């Protein structure tokens, strides 16, 4: 045998593995952080973790470059130059906190609403909202409003949960998976793992998306739909399924409000004296409460009462959706899908749901007390995200999708879509929004929640919005997550009122998370007659030298995700799986080498300095020394705290006393905690007695909460009634017609607002963005490894458009919307809807940010589509400028954008081109030869 060199095939991998939770995105996978000489050497997925089961995405593996990024902020900063210059001086924490207190204390004592506290990609919302509530301002929300509130709210109002954090396909049993408008999503690794499982079984995937990348590229069938028309497509599928009777009648009768009677006069649902929904019992032929044991709800029940004929919800649906308006032929042109293909998809859904159904031998008892010997599968599952959500008709489209799933009987059954604890959780048991301000005292309750009618809106006595973002006002009554994207423009306009201090956390609002970026920059820097900034004070917490840093007056530098405690709590957005409740922590696996502090710990300190009730002891001393202290010792309700695991003596789950060793137990367990759902509680959760009981013991519910799915969403009808003139809380005149039209309690479709507001001939193309799988918004850029994969973004044009405009890859084009124009490099894509252009989201960077060279491709060739999107729609004849948002929830309509393209000679770089920011952290090194340990 030939000589072969010796290779050490068993080198030592690391000194130690510390298990924590990834935060390179919001998916929150478990990671094993390998350390050598106390430094991060390598990061891999944690095999035991419920979310990622060992796998890790590109961002997760690149965490080592994030933790060591040269863009990390180093110390508290006080602005010394003008806003937007990037000129700061480093100050001590004591000075920083005193300064913050000197701004916040007077506000709190006089008028807490003068503080707007908004947190972006916050994973500690139950904590930050608690702080804001204690401060007493009504102005708190996280990023949900510009992200995907349409999906969340539509899901919760319809069936007590939506996709992503609320639930997931039954990956192990589904035979047909249909995915709408998803490029990557929050459930990043789980979706990929699920697709892998489906592929391994040879099951089918249908991708509905104008763009065929990623998940849509591996889909067996690609439906390259016209943006903004999914609602119409889905209602056409519903039309077909109804027409041929391929719907799950038993399911509809038992578990949904399909058989519930609608009062013919008011359009409200009929109830008995105790307020229980009424259905007609097929056996007795009389109205009975829906949950009576033995009831056989009649989907075609008719109640004659007081000379009126009252029909069921189902009756109303059949009448609406059987209309030929929804026939495939009628919608085909608008949705851009041939009628025969719509029918084929309807047929495939029907075939798989009903002909490939199977049963699981598992007895279960429903909420009416009926025992079922089996669980019947409807192995069709769906998933959708921002592609249908981020349109101004998104709420209704998301509703339509949930209704489609429910008609097929495929929610919470084997092979279908399954909720993850703490969901299902119907809108009724969520809190309602609170907005009562008392100087020097906490707010009267949680800020955000679910409204059930005009009486729940957050309005002042004079009827004007109580919140700076106008959430829960007539403009968007069901804005469950607030409207972060409207805060700056409203505060600038002083509409509904002026504020004093804008306090933000983890949101790049002067760049990629705002619409109308240039406009926002101007609003942040504009001064009034007295020479004061129109938005007088801005405090911001970031961990890195982002674009937003330059626009704040005081910077509270955060740690990186491996240097702090965090809590991924069942109280907000936990990491549960359909079969388990789970939560997790982050803990400082390394110590920061800079003068930075975890933001939540800073809030504990600030809260105490401001003497906020929840943050001080009876004697006025600081209650929580830091966030870790809060995580362990805070009590939300008796026995319930931020973490559900290892409570009491360490063995209690869900409910239990404070356990001082809780964090140690989490660390020993790999940074997370899981409690499995009992076997008989795995499906039919909203109606399954075993699940309901388990959820109560876990502290997810206070008492069993079985409920019906709401095909018909009654609160919407209540808003419509107000618009029709009923009740004493009345919408302003200019909103009446829109509320009547768009808050229909049964799903409808209407064209996205921008379609009506602009000349479609002038702006013939749809323009979209997608998340690249290997980048997280703006913060991927500073990552030396990831930025090599996505260092610049071309605008992708369909082949037809490339030809028509005489363009080839690398040419430049001017892209114009009703709001403005940009000049960008273009590239061809064939697998793309022929009237759609798109680019990767948030690759474009401001010169001087992120410790990058000013000539970095991100800044010279990269660009944002955000410059073309305005927070208001173009002016119409009525003299009003309507928000570029969904009229139900206020969700930002990022994807309604229409543009036109012109070829231009290559410019020096993409336009607009902003002046370079002065970097508060200098520039990164030129060469990396990373290796730690000896």
């Amino acid at each position, binding site marked *: 045998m030939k000589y072969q060199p010796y290779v050490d095939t068993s080198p030592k*991998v690391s000194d130690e593995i510390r298990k924590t939770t990834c935060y390179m995105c919001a998916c929150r996978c478990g990671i094993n952080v390998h350390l050598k000489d106390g430094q991060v050497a390598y990061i891999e997925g944690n095999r035991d973790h419920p979310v990622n089961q060992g796998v*890790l*995405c590109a961002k997760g593996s690149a965490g*080592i470059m994030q933790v060591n990024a040269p863009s990390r902020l180093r110390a508290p900063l006080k602005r010394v130059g003008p806003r937007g210059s990037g000129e700061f001086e480093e100050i001590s924490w004591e000075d920083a906190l005193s300064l913050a207190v000197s701004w916040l204390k007077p506000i709190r004592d006089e008028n807490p609403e003068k503080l707007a506290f908004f947190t972006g990609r916050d994973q500690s919302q139950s904590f930050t909202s608690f702080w804001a509530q204690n401060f007493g301002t009504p102005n708190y929300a996280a990023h949900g409003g510009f992200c995907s509130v349409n999906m969340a709210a539509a899901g919760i109002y319809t069936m007590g949960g939506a996709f992503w954090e609320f639930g997931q396909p039954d990956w192990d049993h589904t035979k047909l998976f249909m995915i709408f408008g998803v490029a990557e999503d929050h459930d990043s690794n789980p979706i990929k793992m699920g697709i*892998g499982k489906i592929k391994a079984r040879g099951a089918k995937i249908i991708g509905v998306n104008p763009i065929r990348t990623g998940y849509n590229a591996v889909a067996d069938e690609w439906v390259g739909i016209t943006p903004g028309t999914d609602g119409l497509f889905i209602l056409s599928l519903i039309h077909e399924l109804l027409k041929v009777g391929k719907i799950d009648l038993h399911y509809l009768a038992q578990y949904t409000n399909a058989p519930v009677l609608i009062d013919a006069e008011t359009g409200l649902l009929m109830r008995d004296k105790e307020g229980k929904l009424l259905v007609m019992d097929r056996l007795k032929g009389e109205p009975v409460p829906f949950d009576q044991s033995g009831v056989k709800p009649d989907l075609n029940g008719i109640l004659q009462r007081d000379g009126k004929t009252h029909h069921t919800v189902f009756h109303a649906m059949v009448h609406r959706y*059987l209309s030929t308006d929804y026939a495939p032929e009628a919608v085909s042109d608008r949705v851009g899908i041939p009628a025969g293909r719509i029918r084929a998809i309807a047929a495939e859904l029907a075939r798989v749901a009903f002909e490939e159904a199977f049963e699981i031998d598992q007895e279960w008892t429903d909420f009416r007390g009926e025992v079922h010997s089996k669980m019947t599968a409807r192995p069709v599952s769906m998933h959708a995200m921002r592609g249908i959500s981020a349109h101004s008709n998104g709420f209704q489209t998301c509703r339509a999708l949930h209704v489609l799933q429910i008609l097929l009987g495929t929610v919470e059954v084997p092979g279908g879509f399954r909720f993850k604890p703490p969901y299902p959780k119907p809108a009724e048991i969520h809190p309602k929004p609170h907005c009562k301000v008392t100087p020097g005292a906490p707010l009267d309750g949680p800020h955000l929640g679910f409204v059930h009618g005009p009486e729940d809106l957050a309005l002042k006595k004079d009827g004007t919005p109580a919140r700076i973002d106008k959430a829960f006002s007539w403009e968007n009554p069901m804005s469950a997550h607030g409207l972060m994207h409207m805060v700056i423009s409203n505060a600038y306009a002083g509409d509904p009122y002026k504020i004093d201090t804008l306090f933000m956390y983890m949101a790049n609002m002067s760049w990629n998370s705002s619409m109308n970026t240039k406009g926002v920059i101007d609003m942040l820097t504009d001064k009034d007659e007295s020479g004061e900034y129109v938005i007088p004070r801005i405090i911001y917490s970031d961990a890195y030298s982002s674009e937003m840093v330059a626009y704040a007056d005081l910077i509270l530098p955060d740690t990186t995700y491996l240097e702090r405690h965090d809590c991924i709590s069942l109280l907000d957005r936990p990491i549960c799986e359909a079969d388990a409740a789970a939560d997790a922590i982050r803990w400082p696996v390394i110590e920061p080498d800079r003068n930075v502090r975890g933001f939540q710990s800073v809030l504990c300190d600030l809260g105490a300095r401001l003497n906020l009730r929840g943050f001080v002891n009876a004697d006025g001393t600081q209650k929580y020394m830091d966030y870790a202290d809060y995580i362990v010792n805070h009590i939300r309700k008796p026995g319930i705290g931020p973490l559900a695991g290892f409570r009491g003596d360490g063995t209690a789950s869900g409910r239990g006393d404070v356990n001082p060793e809780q964090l140690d137990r989490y660390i020993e367990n790999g940074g997370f905690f899981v409690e499995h759902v009992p076997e008989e509680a795995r499906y039919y959760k909203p109606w399954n007695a075993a699940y309901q009981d388990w959820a109560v013991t876990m502290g997810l519910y206070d008492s069993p909460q079985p409920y019906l799915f709401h095909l018909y969403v009654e609160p919407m009808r209540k808003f419509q009634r107000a618009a029709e003139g009923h009740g004493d809380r009345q919408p302003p005149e200019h909103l009446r017609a829109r509320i009547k039209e768009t808050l229909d309690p049964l799903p409808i479709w209407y064209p996205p607002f921008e379609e009506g507001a602009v000349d479609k001939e002038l702006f013939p193309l749809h323009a979209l963005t997608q998340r690249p799988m*290997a980048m997280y918004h703006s913060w991927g850029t500073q990552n030396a490894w990831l930025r090599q994969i996505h260092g610049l973004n071309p605008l992708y044009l369909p082949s037809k458009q490339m030809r028509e405009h005489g363009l080839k890859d690398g040419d430049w084009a001017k892209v114009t919307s009703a709001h403005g124009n940009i000049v960008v490099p273009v590239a061809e*894509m064939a697998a793309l809807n022929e009237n759609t252009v798109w680019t990767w989201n948030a690759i474009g960077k401001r010169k001087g940010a992120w410790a990058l060279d000013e000539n970095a491709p991100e800044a010279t060739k990269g660009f944002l589509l955000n410059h073309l999107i305005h927070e208001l729609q173009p002016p119409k004849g009525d003299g009003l400028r309507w928000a570029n948002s969904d009229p139900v929830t206020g969700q930002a309509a990022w994807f309604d954008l229409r543009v036109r393209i012109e070829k231009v000679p290559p410019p020096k770089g993409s336009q607009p081109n902003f002046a370079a920011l002065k970097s508060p952290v200098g520039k990164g090194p030129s060469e990396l030869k990373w*290796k730690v340990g000896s």
Partner: protein
Amino acid sequence: MTELPSRTNRKLGLVIDLDTCVGCHACVISCKGWNTENYGAPLSDQSAYGANPSGTFLNRVHSYEIMPESGGAAQLIHFPKSCLHCEDAPCVTVCPTGASYKRVDDGIVLVNENDCIGCGLCAWACPYGAREMDAAEGVMKKCTLCVDRIYNDNLPEEDRVPACVRTCPAGARHFGDFADPDSNVSRLSAERGGFDLMPEQGTKPVNKYLPPRPKDTMEEVDILAPLLTPIAEEPVGFMAWLDKTLEKI
């Protein structure tokens, strides 16, 4: 050693499933992470935060569009590529120093960095672009098939697979011994029609690729298809059907 072994005891390699790869680049970065910290010199990056970032990677994911002859919708395929550990590896025989070699035991093609003069000839000889010269270290880098993981006693047994395989969220990468006809990779490749890249180059790659399954095969359906026989065109008729059907439930 630059002569190739006449046979190797095993043929370790990867199966990459192009039907499943979503193009997420997870394998690219986990490879970068592992190999920066382990075998040989770190995989360096130049202009890391600068105008022209460029670094050494042992695994890169391309993407291609296919316009089907039939005229159907265009398709997009994600295409990860690393060293294929060829049986007839031309990169090995050209090497003047013997730094490049193919292991007799398992067929892994490696570069012994202490012997490499950085002449680049092996990279010239590789048709697949699987070798990259590290600009900082001046030696040739390539996929090691994670030779320092797959036998590593310091790793739990289940982790003794390449970093890219362990991390792939979609499960599109499989590792095993192609010399064993019953191994997972041999069976997968046989079942799904695993194929070679550039067979005409005569390199006899060990790694196999699984082809994407046929796409967009669903036939458009007309109204008369059995699954779509209408029960009624009008709500009245529908409600009558409903009553009848509900009787039966």
